[in-house]
């Protein structure tokens, strides 16, 4: 299975976009049991791309490419921003960060998926899950 879709960088479009992708990804019982985590990771990665990558510039797109082969789901999310230093992300669960209102998205993605990789100076995040 392969899906390739893009959306403009508008926060109000994310929920509908993620739901439509999820319907196409999660069909078997094992996929449905993983649906919460897949949805969480997809949602957070797209929010990051829209807010931090494309700085909510409606003219910039978020590209999502999904492949599902031999029990492995691979989702790649790409923005058109300047990238970011993904090697220096503050840990949101240390006492000094625990009450901060931002900075949990990537942490949630890493916990929800089996593998997370970055490319193109952080403009691309590739998230993987065994189903």
């Amino acid at each position, binding site marked *: 299975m392969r899906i390739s879709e893009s959306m403009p960088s508008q*926060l*109000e479009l*994310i*929920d509908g976009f993620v739901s439509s992708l999820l319907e196409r990804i999660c069909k078997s019982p094992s996929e449905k049991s993983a649906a*919460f*985590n897949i*949805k*969480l990771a997809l*949602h*957070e990665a797209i*929010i990051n791309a829209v807010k931090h990558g494309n700085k909510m510039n409606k003219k910039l797109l978020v590209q999502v490419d999904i492949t599902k082969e031999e029990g492995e789901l691979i989702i790649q999310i790409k923005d058109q921003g300047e990238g970011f230093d993904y090697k220096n992300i503050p840990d*949101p*669960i240390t006492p000094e960060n*625990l*009450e*901060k*209102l*931002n900075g*949990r*998205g990537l*942490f*949630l993605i890493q*916990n929800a998926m089996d593998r997370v990789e970055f490319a193109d100076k952080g403009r691309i995040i590739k998230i993987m899950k065994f189903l």
Partner: protein
Amino acid sequence: MKISINVEDDVTVVTLEGELNVDDSIMLRGAFLKILKEGAKEVMVDFEKVSFVGSAGLATLIEMMQMLRKAGGKLGCCNINSNIRGLFEITKIHKLITIYENRAMALRNF
């Protein structure tokens, strides 16, 4: 998301229905600011009909807890499903906000 608010035993109970995503979090924040302005000090959020929470929802809950703490009140949550409870635990938010098994237990012990 649907938000309904009622007062039970001096506790303001905020019942949510749907998903707590980006737009829904803005809606919840707005409803919360209104009850805070009206003097609510003890607020319980009932998650029985909530199927999904993202980072925006978690951030809103933390902000609500902070505002209530500043006002001398407190925030609790109840009826959280296992997926959402897992989120509270990995992000350690359960150390900031008291979680109750169900509404009756929450109101008895709040």
